[in-house]
């Protein structure tokens, strides 16, 4: 890469300043505040706060309920990431192979992405409504009495389906463009060497897609961990009850509904650490296997 020369050594910092200011005000400052208040027990109106050390953390981590939410979050994140990446990739590979009317297929597969998560949740809620939901009626054909909102597993399945459905188009767009950047010469050479399409996918296409797939893996995990909040909120209808929820929803429930700022801050710091560890893991161990050009 060519080095850009600035006439003054301060100029680059000036250009960076707006971005840094935004990051500082909206990311670092709140994070520092969260870390600070996680060590205190505070009344909601802020009249007095008591330093309690790590007890907010031990209360959260020691709670059976918190542990079961954490377990669900792991399963949920893994399934949503795997399914939305897998299905997105399958669709992209197939759509890439379509010659006639490919634009129509691609558009149809992409437009779901324009739906906002709460709206997706709302649609999911209607599809899975106990009384009128078409998918519930469909499940009943197979003798499955689906009770979303009542049965833990049924609600979990519905949440995963809606979250995956919402995320597939995003993966589709990226994988499709990744596929299209594979040079025609490489494809042709591979086609001459190997007849099996499946084998060509595993030995040629997938390795060349690795940078895209790695990027998507990171994005999908953060999506499943954090951005599914809207879907979950709408699907549990504001009342989590015995329905599955993720850790980020628990932070919201304790902080904004329960007004327990200390406990909620501790939980959000735990989430911050999880993301931090995950990021390090991904970049140290997975990215090494990814070849950029």
């Amino acid at each position, binding site marked *: 890469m060519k080095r850009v020369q600035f006439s003054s050594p301060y100029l680059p910092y000036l250009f960076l300043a707006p971005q840094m200011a935004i990051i500082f005000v909206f990311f670092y400052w709140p994070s520092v505040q969260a870390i600070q208040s996680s060590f205190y027990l505070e009344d*909601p*109106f802020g*009249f007095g706060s008591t330093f309690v050390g790590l007890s907010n953390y031990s209360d959260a981590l020691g709670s059976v309920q918190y542990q079961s939410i954490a377990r669900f979050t792991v399963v949920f994140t893994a399934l949503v990431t795997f399914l939305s990446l897998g299905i997105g990739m399958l669709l992209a590979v197939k759509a890439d192979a379509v010659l006639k009317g490919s634009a129509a297929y691609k558009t149809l597969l992409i437009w779901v992405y324009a739906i906002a998560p709460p709206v997706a949740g709302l649609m999911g809620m209607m599809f899975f409504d106990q009384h009128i939901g078409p998918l519930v009626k469909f499940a009943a054909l197979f003798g499955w009495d689906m009770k979303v909102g*009542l049965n833990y597993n049924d609600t979990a399945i519905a949440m995963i389906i809606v979250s995956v459905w919402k995320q597939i188009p995003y993966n589709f767009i990226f994988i499709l463009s990744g596929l299209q950047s594979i040079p025609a010469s490489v494809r042709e050479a591979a086609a001459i060497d190997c007849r099996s399409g499946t084998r060509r996918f595993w030995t040629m296409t997938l390795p060349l897609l690795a940078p895209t797939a790695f990027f998507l893996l990171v994005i999908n995990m953060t999506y499943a961990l954090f951005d599914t909040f809207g879907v979950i909120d709408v699907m549990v209808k504001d009342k*989590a*009850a015995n329905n599955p929820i993720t850790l980020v929803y628990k932070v919201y*429930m304790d902080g904004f509904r*329960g*007004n327990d700022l200390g406990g909620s801050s501790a939980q959000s710091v735990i989430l911050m650490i999880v993301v931090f560890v995950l990021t390090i893991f991904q970049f140290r161990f997975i990215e090494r296997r990814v070849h950029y050009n």
Partner: protein
Amino acid sequence: MFKPLSLAGFALAFSASASMAATNITWWHGMAGRNGEVINEVAQKFNAAQSACALTPVSKGTYEEALASGIAAFRSGEQPNILQVFDAGAATIINAPGAVIPAEDLITGAGHPFDREAFIEGVRYFYATPDGKFVGMPFNSSAPIMYVNTEALEKAGVEAPKTWEEFEAIAPKLKEAGYLPLVQSQLTWQFTENFFSRNNIQFATNNNGYDSVTDTKINMTDPNLVMMFTKLKAWADEGYFGYFGAGWNDNQKLFEDGKAALWIGSSGSFGGLQKTAQKPFTAAFLPYWQGIEGAGTNSFIGGAALFAMSGKPDEENKCTADFFQFLTSPEIQKFYHQATGYVAITKAAYELAKSEGYYEKTPVAEVGIQQLMLKSGDWSKGYRLGFYPQIREIMEREYGRIFAGETSVEDAMKTIETEANDLLARFAKTAG
């Protein structure tokens, strides 16, 4: 660079204060839909009735969101003059004594008379100090009442039950007639908090939490409460009771569609139900257990109250007091009662509506008030428990597990008690 900005700010502040003849006060609330519109109408009436104060209502979403925004605003010194706080959040705000000016002090301080006895029995204690001083101004109050599908009862040839024993007796007939005998919409409010109040059983130590936050313990393993939920589960298994999750509307829907015979709803549901119910309906009191000694007492106020936030200038507080005074006038109470279906909270307003023949035309509207005016008992005036919104979430979770068959009633109640007591102890630390 800063000069023009601050000058502009100064000019803005100056012009704003110059153009304001009336004192502006704000009111944050958690009402939406028709109920939100009625709040705007109440504010318009207040603004039209006098010229010294201008009241602006602002909807902050749901009850929970209104409380959360009120708290956040208070912490940054931007609090509204009036904040609407719902029943479960009452302990949060009342136990933060510097956050609000008690409504009674505010009203008497502004030179208005204040008579506690003017309010109906069921609303008098919930938002008050242990010695009876009003901290919050009761605003929209509701009671859990039983709606009755008249057609279903006629078909089955039975009367609406007054007690749960009577319900048990008629449930098979209702089922035979092709109806789901019973649905409800909120197990926490209707079958827990009001169960204790309607059956006159102690809900928590320290006088249901009113006397102190220190060492308050909840009584979830009460044998009668366990019995109630054991019955509900048995009824559910036999097809006498339907549970469709913690969401209010999923359960109400069966009554609206005429599939359920009895529905425990809110007295405030009546306005909406008139539009949505497909079958004629009437209403009766929330049943109680004949077998529990001393049962049959009144239920306590649900809904929400208005709190005057502290840290505001005197002239604004005067306006808030004027508005509270205005709100309790019989005409406004009657208007609000009839426009929303929430009960009238003063005796005078109730008498006024009655004298105009309102309840002869719409008898359902009277059921909630009458239930709140029933004789009271030692334990029928509600509760004051910290972190109660979270305790409700625990109840919702465990109750859901009971009906999903994942736990037994006894285990669920034990879990709720343990977790709730932990939260109460935690709250005592924050408030202490």
